[in-house]
């Protein structure tokens, strides 16, 4: 559990977004969102060039899919309903 200053920051930021048009807040959010994706894809591209890299990436992908599937099974056992861990559907 994060401490209360984290929640205060979530609220402070939401209030900032509410008070400003998208053209203002997107400049601050875009680097955060884009850099996460660019850095991850750069890593995978570099890693794919190493010995056994493609195989390890394939394993990572399988782990990710399994982890998602496990989350769903937990949700199912808790709620008797599959498939709600990540999305509404």
């Amino acid at each position, binding site marked *: 559990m994060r401490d209360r200053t984290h929640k205060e920051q979530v609220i402070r*930021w939401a209030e900032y977004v509410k008070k400003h048009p998208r053209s203002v807040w997107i400049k601050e*959010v875009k680097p955060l969102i*884009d850099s996460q994706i660019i850095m*991850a894809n750069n890593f995978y591209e570099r890693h794919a060039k190493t010995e056994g890299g493609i195989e390890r990436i394939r394993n990572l992908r399988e782990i990710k899919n399994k982890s998602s599937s496990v989350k769903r099974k937990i949700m199912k056992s808790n709620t008797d309903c599959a*498939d709600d861990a990540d*999305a509404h559907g």
Partner: protein
Amino acid sequence: MSREVKDRTILDTFAEDFVDVVEKHAKYVIVSGFVAIAHGRSRGTEVVDIIIERINKDAFIKMHNDLLLAGFECIQSEYPKVIYEDYLTEKTSVRYVRKGHFIPEMELKLAKDELDDYQIRTRKKLPLTGLDLYFSSIEMNIAFKEELLRSEKDMEDAEHLRIIYSDMLDENELIRIKAEIRRLRLS
């Protein structure tokens, strides 16, 4: 809504490019975390969640083939029949990425019950996002996050949306949706 590339995140263009194909084949709705992120919530994600109406196998195969032509690939299988029969009709989502990329990914599933049908029926374009996409209603997103998902991240997403839409939320609709979630997903 005009599309200006300079203010689009990678997630925005990914989602818009994907639904450009999907909407030719099925009604869709974008749900969950990306709804909050499209409203300025400052957190990362690698997944955009999309629910499409229940379409038959032939229609899905056409959509899948168009997605391939548009530069996407499905992680689970290259065979649309397998994707449809082994995953989608089993109420399991599948993930599409841009060919050769690892993230972001589009998590796609078929509508599975009255709540999903309702989400698609009441989908909206949300001007505050600046995006030309159909989203599930804000009340629906908040209700799912507060009533069903409930992780710290989900509760913060809900809080963010509550603040952004503080003067526009339909609290009666929220109560009604939460009751439906309890009836259909939690009982």
